[in-house]
């Protein structure tokens, strides 16, 4: 009964936050609940580490009929990393988000997102996955438009309409799939598809619709336009939360359905997914290098980095999938931390335009070091987690015979480095341009909680790089579980 707890903890907070009036209690309760959630995620991880998979049949209805919650090694890993990211961003938000937003229920909607994310990682059937997607999206719709600044509303409209369209693709796919197969339980579907090989060609329309839905949610080429148009508009803490959690759920779902359904017709899907990954990598990184806004550069890099995960999936070997899983975890942590640093810069200078920033390293060395760690982890410098992630992806590519793809991945790495060095020089190293007036408030704002949040993530980045061995081993186990579809089917149905 440990899995439903991950859904009930955020839900309980939402109810309490409606009832409690005091802002202070609400705030600290939110942090406490995020820690409880982290504790449960660790517990799930500990259990899954021993037995491989755990499941709960809600309402005791047996598998293909009831609602099933499943956690295998891959979901447990994602649950743990997202719980960590969420707890850290909550700590950061206590100081970073303005009083008006917190009073109006900022943490309430953040927990709504957490509930949706946890649910998506645990969902055992497709329609449930859709419902959790919507829970997550509803929270994110509100957070992105929360506060009602003009740019925010504009970003929110784009974000909202494109994400709704992606949901329609997904639901239409589910409808067609149900019409053909008569079940929506993922394990049952996978089994039925495996048993009747000829049905596969009729399922292609449904699969294409579902994959397009996930690709829009995961901001992959050519469906990524909503992401850089909206992610730089809300407060930085919100962007950090979105960057850490939302697009990753789309990619998680893509990996899940790829290993359960799409692997039957690899001759079609492998090149498609491979090209989506390559183009996301290349176009994301090129678009980023032409930008001059701190958060916009990072937003385009989200697209580019997810490309690495997708090519890891497209190699479709144990090494490739393990690399994809590792990279996903690394990216959630490093990207969130980069946005946390952006939040501090925004707080000090009220702008994130690289042209008017400067001197930030002099202002606070520790934040400079924190940015250095997360940015150069994203660029893939040893001994940080990004180096291991890229090394694994490229190695898996060469081993599975995709040498040219591996070369593209290396090439994209250089451009990532270029963008990160650009931010480093423009924001932290150069002097503030003389024509820019010095900031009015010389007294430093309090940022103790913000910096401790960022330090935790930085330690996680370094830890994932230095002690990569056990993590990589775990990812390999998770990957071989994913490739062994029978294991998942038998576990869920029996």
């Amino acid at each position, binding site marked *: 009964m440990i899995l439903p707890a991950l859904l009930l903890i955020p839900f309980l907070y939402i109810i309490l936050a409606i009832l409690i009036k005091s802002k202070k209690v609400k705030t600290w309760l939110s942090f406490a609940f995020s820690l409880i959630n982290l504790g449960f995620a660790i517990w799930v991880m500990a259990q899954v580490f021993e037995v491989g998979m755990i499941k709960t049949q809600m309402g005791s209805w047996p598998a293909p009929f009831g609602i099933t919650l499943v956690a295998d090694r891959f979901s447990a890993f994602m649950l743990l990393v997202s719980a960590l990211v969420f707890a850290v961003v909550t700590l950061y938000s206590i100081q970073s988000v303005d009083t008006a937003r917190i009073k109006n229920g900022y943490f309430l909607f953040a927990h709504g997102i957490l509930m949706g994310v946890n649910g998506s990682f645990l969902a055992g059937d497709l329609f449930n996955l859709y419902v959790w997607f919507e829970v997550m999206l509803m929270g994110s719709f509100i957070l992105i438009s929360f506060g*009602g600044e003009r740019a925010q*509303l504009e970003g929110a409209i784009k974000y909202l309409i494109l994400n709704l369209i992606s949901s329609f693709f997904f639901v239409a796919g589910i*409808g067609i799939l149900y019409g053909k197969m008569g079940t929506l339980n993922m394990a049952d579907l996978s089994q039925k598809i495996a048993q009747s090989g000829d049905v596969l060609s009729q399922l292609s329309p449904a699969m294409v619709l579902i994959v397009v839905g996930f690709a829009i949610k995961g901001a992959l080429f050519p469906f990524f336009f909503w992401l850089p148009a909206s992610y*730089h508009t809300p407060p930085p803490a919100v962007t950090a939360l979105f960057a850490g959690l939302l697009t990753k759920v789309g990619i998680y779902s893509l990996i899940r359905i790829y290993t359960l359904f799409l692997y039957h017709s690899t001759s079609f899907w492998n090149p498609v997914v491979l090209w989506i990954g390559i183009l996301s990598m290349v176009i994301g990184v090129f678009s980023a290098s032409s930008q001059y806004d701190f958060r916009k550069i990072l937003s385009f890099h989200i697209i580019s980095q997810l490309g690495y995960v997708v090519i890891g999936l497209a190699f479709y070997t144990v090494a490739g999938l393990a690399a994809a899983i590792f990279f996903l975890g690394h990216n959630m942590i490093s990207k969130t931390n980069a946005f946390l640093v952006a939040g501090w810069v925004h707080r000090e200078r009220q702008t994130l335009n690289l042209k008017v920033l400067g001197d930030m390293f002099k202002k606070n060395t520790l934040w400079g070091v924190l940015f250095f760690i997360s940015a150069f982890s994203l660029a893939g410098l040893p001994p940080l987690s990004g180096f291991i992630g890229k090394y694994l992806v490229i190695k898996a590519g060469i081993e599975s015979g995709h040498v040219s793809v591996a070369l593209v991945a290396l090439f994209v790495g250089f451009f990532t480095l270029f963008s990160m060095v650009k931010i480093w020089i423009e924001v932290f190293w150069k002097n503030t341009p003389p024509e820019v007036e010095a900031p009015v408030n010389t007294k430093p704002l309090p940022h103790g909680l913000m910096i401790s949040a960022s330090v935790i993530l930085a330690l996680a980045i370094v830890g994932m790089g230095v002690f990569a061995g056990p993590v990589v081993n775990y990812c390999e186990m998770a990957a071989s579980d994913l490739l062994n579809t029978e294991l998942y089917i038998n576990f869920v149905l029996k």
Partner: protein
Amino acid sequence: MELIFAIFIGLLYACGVFLLLRRSIVKVILGVFVLSNATNLIIFLAGGIKRSGSAFIPEGAETIDPAVISDPLPQALILTAIVIGLGIAAYILALKYRYFEETGTHDLDQLSKTDRK
């Protein structure tokens, strides 16, 4: 019956996409509503359309022949999708209203600020 239904859904999708491509934000939002309903109807169609009884097991009997009842699951799915759609519709209209208050415009072409460098 199924053919008529399929054509009708196709028409709804066409209307929805047409509305999505308009310049007025209100029409785009209406397009989203039309698409959402078209999608719900796909699930309905996927469950199969037939004249048959409701999915109750008669008193005293243990089971019922699946041929004489219609599949209740798609209806449950649509119900869920409608509720979610309603919540989102309320939210998106409120968002549009707020945007209109802030800027006084319905024109999608004015929404290019966040895409510029």
